[in-house]
């Protein structure tokens, strides 16, 4: 009785969503095509300058995997006015921090400074766009660094092939470049010549192929003037990157795979599916499904497999939606001797339940509460807001989606959840991966 009262009390909150912070911003284009997004937030005296380029691992040509990420490293080597090795020193000597990251779809660079250093940030990013210096010495050094990054992140890291998906996406995507890994192959990188890097720069690192975001404690008009000064004169060396759509044939027969990881002792059973692209509402529904299955100790798979049956040490489910496709991955770290068939049966039962029964009203409300909390959290830091604005604009075509996310989640019905589970999560649409401890047997290589 106590329990139901509690539940009832909570239902009173339905519809009373605290208005999560709306992110105000302004956007425009420079004559050279550079897309600019400004977000003013004067709560703390800090500012983030970020540039997102519409080039990622999926733009790599055959035989040059890892090129985009490698190139990201190269663009810290220096510019005509920033000496080699000085990039990081300038940032820290001005009290800032910086980084960059590369995904399949885009490459993003940013600096965060005390707000009186805004102009330095704009200068640095415009230097990078205008005239980076790409030399053999930088290629050689970064080649070694990237090899270490790969070893550290993937080869030496427990479950690295799951976390970085190098042991999953290769089984899902046979045509689309998402099947290749972002960090790529060292052989490919070793083979790349200096002039390839130079032409990569000319092809992709142009204002018409980039979004500049400035967020934080700024004066909008002054910022606009500085942006014009630093970025306005940069000329394009090529057309903006237009990508030909690559259509991946849907998986219609279950695929089976085995992956090995010498860094682990506990095997995992992983199911992964191809799902819709990030802009699709169904991608949001899959976030809900992940949460139903593994979000918190009261989630379905956790309760069933970890708590009750004690067949899993941990369960996982995550939805990762990219520009062209998404992937949905679920699985378990296996406790004790793996009984693959029974694990499969259990996970299938949980999916079947989603496909055949509507989730309860209470579970539905729980989801909404969880996503509201997540959303309030998401835009609490300037650095995060900057990156989200650029991502929404470049990869989903509309920066204002930053404020629509919660509405989209809220519009999802219980029926949507059932429909999406039926549409994407059938056994014949997935790859089943036995992720084993140890090294790959020689004969399989």
């Amino acid at each position: 009785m106590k329990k139901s009262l509690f539940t009832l009390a909570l239902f009173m909150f339905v519809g009373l969503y605290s208005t999560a912070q709306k992110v105000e911003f302004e956007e425009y284009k420079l004559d050279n095509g550079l897309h600019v997004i400004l977000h003013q937030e004067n709560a703390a005296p800090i500012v983030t300058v970020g540039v997102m380029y519409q080039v990622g691992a999926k733009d790599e040509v055959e035989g040059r995997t890892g090129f985009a990420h490698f190139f990201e490293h190269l663009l810290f080597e220096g510019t005509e006015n920033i000496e080699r090795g000085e990039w990081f020193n300038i940032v820290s000597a001005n009290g800032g921090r910086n980084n960059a990251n590369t995904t399949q779809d885009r490459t993003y660079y940013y600096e965060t400074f005390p707000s009186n250093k805004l102009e330095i940030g704009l200068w640095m990013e415009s230097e990078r766009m205008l005239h980076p210096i790409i030399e053999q010495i930088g290629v050689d050094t970064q080649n070694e660094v990237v090899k270490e990054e790969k070893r550290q992140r993937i080869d030496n890291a427990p479950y690295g092939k799951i976390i970085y998906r190098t042991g999953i996406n290769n089984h899902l995507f046979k045509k689309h470049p998402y099947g290749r890994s972002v960090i790529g192959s060292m052989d490919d990188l070793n083979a790349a010549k200096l002039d390839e890097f130079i032409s990569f720069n000319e092809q992709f690192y142009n204002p018409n192929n980039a979004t500049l975001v400035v967020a934080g404690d700024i004066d909008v008009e002054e910022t606009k003037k500085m942006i014009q000064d630093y970025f306005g004169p940069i000329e394009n060396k090529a057309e903006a990157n237009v990508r030909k759509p690559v259509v991946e044939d849907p998986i219609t027969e279950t695929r089976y795979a085995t992956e090995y990881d010498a860094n682990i002792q506990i095997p995992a059973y992983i199911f992964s599916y191809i799902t819709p692209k990030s802009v699709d509402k169904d991608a949001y529904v899959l976030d809900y499904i992940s949460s139903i299955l593994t979000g918190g100790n009261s989630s379905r798979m956790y309760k069933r497999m970890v708590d009750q049956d004690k067949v899993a040490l941990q369960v996982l489910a995550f939805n990762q939606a990219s520009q062209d496709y998404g992937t949905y991955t679920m699985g378990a770290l296996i406790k004790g001797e793996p009984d693959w068939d029974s694990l499969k049966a259990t996970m299938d039962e949980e999916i079947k339940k989603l496909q055949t029964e509507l989730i309860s009203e209470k579970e539905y409300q729980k989801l909404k509460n969880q996503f509201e909390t997540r959303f309030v959290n998401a835009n609490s830091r300037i650095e995060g807001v900057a990156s989200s604005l650029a991502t929404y604009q470049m990869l989903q075509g509309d920066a204002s989606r930053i404020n629509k996310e919660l509405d989209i989640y809220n519009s999802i019905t219980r029926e949507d959840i059932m429909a999406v589970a039926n549409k994407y999560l059938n056994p014949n649409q997935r790859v089943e991966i036995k992720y084993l401890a140890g090294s790959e047997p020689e004969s399989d290589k």
Partner: protein
Amino acid sequence: MKKYIIFTLLAVFMGATVTAQIDRTKIPESGPMPEVNLGEAKEFKLKNGLTVLVVTDSKLPSLNWNLNLNNPPVYEGDKAGVQSLTSALMGKETQLTSKDDFSEKIDFLGASMNVSPNGGFGFCLSKYTDQVFSLFAEAALQPKFTQEELDFEKEQLIEGIKSGENSAAAIAGNVRSALLYGKNHAAGEIITEETVNNVTLEDVNNFYKERFKPSNGYILFSGDITEKQAKSLLKKYFRDWDKGSVETPEYPSFEDVPTTEINFVDVPNAVQTELAVMSVSPLKMSDEDYHAALVTNYILGGAFGSYLNMNLREDKGYTYGARSSLGTGRYYNSSFRATTKVRNEITDSAVVETLKEIKRIRTEPVDAEILANAKAKFLGSFILESEDKAVAARRALRIRTNNLPEDFYKNYIANIDKVTIEDVQRVADKYLADDKARIVLVGKAADVLENVEKIEWNGKKLPVKYFDKEANPTDRPETVVLPEGLTAETVLNNYLTAIGGKEAIDKTTSLILKYEASAMGNTIVSEEKKLDGKASQVLSMGGNPMMTVIMTKDKATMNKNPLPENMATDMSVLAGLFPELNMLSSDKVKLAGIEAVDGKDAYKVDVSGDVISLSFYYDVESGLKVKEVQTTNMQGRTQSQETMLKDYQTYEGLKFPNVRAGSQMGQVIEFKLIEVKINEGVSDQDFD
């Protein structure tokens, strides 16, 4: 609004027509330093002694709290794991609410929380504050521990330990602290399957009761909450929490090694070596040196542009990153650590480069610009941190738990600014060590150990000690992977087959091999004569004999003078037609591994000796001997002589190398085979 639009248009228009007046060649000027507005933490104390700090920031409709009981670290001993098991059990079920209901309630509210015997935290939307805080208090003050859940958590913990058994990073995490603090120390002990199994339900109950006490503790609230709300929450939910505190135990002492040494842990699957150079840090936050120490560590390894990273990553490309940390202690000393992950092949070089940078900051004055930049970074970070309003509460807490003056953070930047070039060097010398450092390497012995054992620092070879994954001393790990079942005997027999086979060798009764080389304008001739059980070598220069060595089974002479007995014994293996025939019956012969000789794998066979040790290398593919190394160890001095054997050619059914190349007095000298005589011209008198 209209004005605004016109201005925007104007700006765009102007941009298109006017050339910007900027100078790209210089770093732009910074604007005036912005003001940092950090809310003050409101502070009050509960009757039970718990100190409350509240920072209100209503920008977002959420809040978090952090309960820190300020407990001294505990040594768990043969029950290591009791702390983590108690943590795992807390927050699962309570005296009032079943496990399923409890997790359901928290998840339903979209909240997250965690409770442990040392405190806990919570996060939720502010509209659920009351419900979530009440659940937090319930989990904290009325936990329920059951055997069933304990058994479950023990299993999970043991599986977790197992899951890290092959991970170089997990192993490094354990052994670094165990070796520095000692396994008998709270900070150094390692949780194992055995110690986890020792933990009983009673242990868990007691552990909770003894440690969950408020009187030395703090609770920090930050976010969408006022002081008044915090007060009423605590009054409502923490009312029944009686005072009490945990006594600080005696901690065992620990100190640096007297001279720098290497501690090696073998992880055969590792593709990178986990490298740490460590020493004891007596630094405290309240020390006068604290600010200088922060700056010093920043310059050495606190940032991308630091000495360590610029050398190991940017210059050498050994690693994705190299950093250092200089810890401060409250109950006992902390540690200095320079750490990185490097690829196997250059592990030895990475150790040396790391030591070099530590030595550099201790012995060379830091560049004025580097120091100025470091200070600027501290200022910048101080400003950037202000975005997180909880920082005010955290700073207030740090002041209290470290006995710092109230104005510690007010003067923070001024104190950083005061640090001089001399301070950096002085503090580096005081707190960092390259001469009494413990270097912990966790990596693949087969790939890295042989070179690691050759590392020299400050003119001395560094001693290497070996440990297992739980930091217990162990034997030197095997560094080579030989084909299963392969023995020295097989390698030697393969060699004898390769040079001609049993039949050809059996027919041989004597040998003369004459080699000629030219060096320093002279012709040098080496003539070897061999009979069964006897061998001699005469070196002549310009036709004059310079040195004559004669070896038989029981004695050896040089220029007719007898050599010491132990040396003669060592050399007896060479006394004969083919040393390999003697080696087949010697118990001093060992197959030592596989090494590359001129880029090709060769089996290494060692012949150990008192004074003279030999290593012969036999090509894996052809079976032929490709290299000889003779190491002489006399009166504490070791000298090695390497000879490469090349271009085998057949003489009357037997193969001999046409070239023997070795270095003499810093010069490579190639001896060419000019004469081979088989079964003629040798008599017993040649060996008198």
